[in-house]
């Protein structure tokens, strides 16, 4: 299956990944190769098969709605790229 260049550009935007002009042909070719592989799934007869999203249908436990952790803001902000007065900072979004 050949994935179109416009689709790669859309995927890159959705994934927040920049793909530069030099590599876009390679990326397209390799992605197409992987999609050829996964296209083999079409050969499977899955009529009336209920799909599973995790092994042996284990149900996820829910914990009691109780506070179990203290505030770790200082520890987490110590490893952040940029903080200011207890806040995580990012480039300006709104003028």
């Amino acid at each position, binding site marked *: 299956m050949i994935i179109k260049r416009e689709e790669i550009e859309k995927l*890159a935007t959705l994934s927040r990944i920049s793909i530069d002009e030099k590599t876009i042909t390679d990326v397209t070719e390799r*992605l197409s190769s992987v*999609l050829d592989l996964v296209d*083999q799934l079409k050969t499977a007869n899955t009529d009336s098969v209920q799909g599973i999203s995790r092994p042996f249908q284990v149900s996820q436990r829910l914990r009691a709605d109780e506070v179990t952790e203290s505030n770790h803001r200082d520890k987490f902000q110590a490893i952040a790229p*940029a903080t200011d007065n207890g806040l995580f900072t990012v480039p300006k979004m709104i003028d």
Partner: protein
Amino acid sequence: MHNYTIAELVKGLQSKQFSSVELTQHFLSRISQFNDQYNAVITVTADQALQAAQLADQRLAMGSAPALCGVPLLHKDIFCTKGVRTSCGSKMLDNFIPPYNATVVENFEQAGVVMLGKTNMDEFAMGSSNETSFYGPVKNPWATDCVPGGSSGGSAAAVAGRLAPGATATDTGGSIRQPAALCGISGLKPTYGRVSRWGMIAFASSLDQAGPMARTAEDCALLLNCMASFDDKDSTCVDRDVPDYSASLNKTVKGLRIGVPKEYFSEGLHPGTEAAVKKALADLEAQGAELVEISLPNSDLSVPAYYVIAPAEASANLSRFDGVKYGYRCENPKDLQDMYCRTRSEGFGEEVQRRILIGTYCLSAGYYDAYYGKAQQVRKLIEQDFVNAFKDVDLIVGPTCPSPAFKFGSKGDDPVAMYLEDIYTIATNLAGLPGMSVPCGMVEGKPVGLQIIGNYFDEARMLNLAHQFQQVTDWHTQAPEGIS
């Protein structure tokens, strides 16, 4: 000391034949001497290790220390270690120092196990050759021009090269079993939910599972005894008693029914690997096990299903790496979108970016049902194949991977050639079953792995078979050239 198994080290520590400090110094010295050859260890925690060893010796002197107290171990760099860089093999986390321990790390720390450092790995555990690591490839101690397998290649090479007696690892599609096979050691991926994933950096959450690597099945049992625990902090961790995996190692295998899947002996299997695995099956039969040919008819769909499900989950899991709260951030972003895009393009390597793109594609509007929905249905078919097989057999045995270790760069530019390396291991992850690999032969001077797949939570029986196999074979005792 580096040729002792963990079981022998435990005896030596408890009988005061040597101290944990002596043992730790010995392995630190081996890492310092030989790691340049293998690139297996990317962070060495020497000071911390020696302090932990001193504490372990105090506990041992008091006479009430847990079984593994004082034993040195390496952790795959996917497990968060408090105060110690946890990179996941990526530039994205090259500067990440977690403020907490993963539950697996905590379990070992509580037991007095001494962390020597962290092992190299494929970036975010995405790879089968360790060539995708930001820190450079790990070299196979059996042939340094060949890959060690992946993604836990650093852990496997470190154990094979006697830089540590054991190591932790993780397996999403074969990342414990395939490198264990290629490096000639033993490795076990437990049942999904048996070991806590808390603090283990997520790749594909419905497939990831942590497990031990060591030279023998007996040592894997000792390590699993400590790794497996119920953990309230992982909502998929199963609340079920942890048996003593060492207790049943010596049971006879006479009468065990072993399923041999015919699909695992078809085109693509290296003739030398096939011969070694068939010899191992004959050895098991000679020990009294009964071989039964079985069929896993949807085996050929496991790789395609995996390469929808794993990238889909990865694309969601890795969306957290955005340069805001921790990890890499690009220089001088001009706005928020630029920061996200450049951080992720500069911070992630090529394979990780490819899997994010594939996952995003499979989950996007218009393709979700055709890819993700279909892969989930095929996953059910694969699970059902195993459920049917285990109605008739106790264990399933076959090759771990199609061929022995291959040369760096030999899989070329086509990612699919690399993906097929996990053709025999991926199905157990999709089904959530436990699997292990033990050495069973040599081809062209490189090790071959025998895969043992168990029913859900039947790790004890797998370890029993593997241990009994290692009582009548010596593949697990062989060492790469130059190690004495």
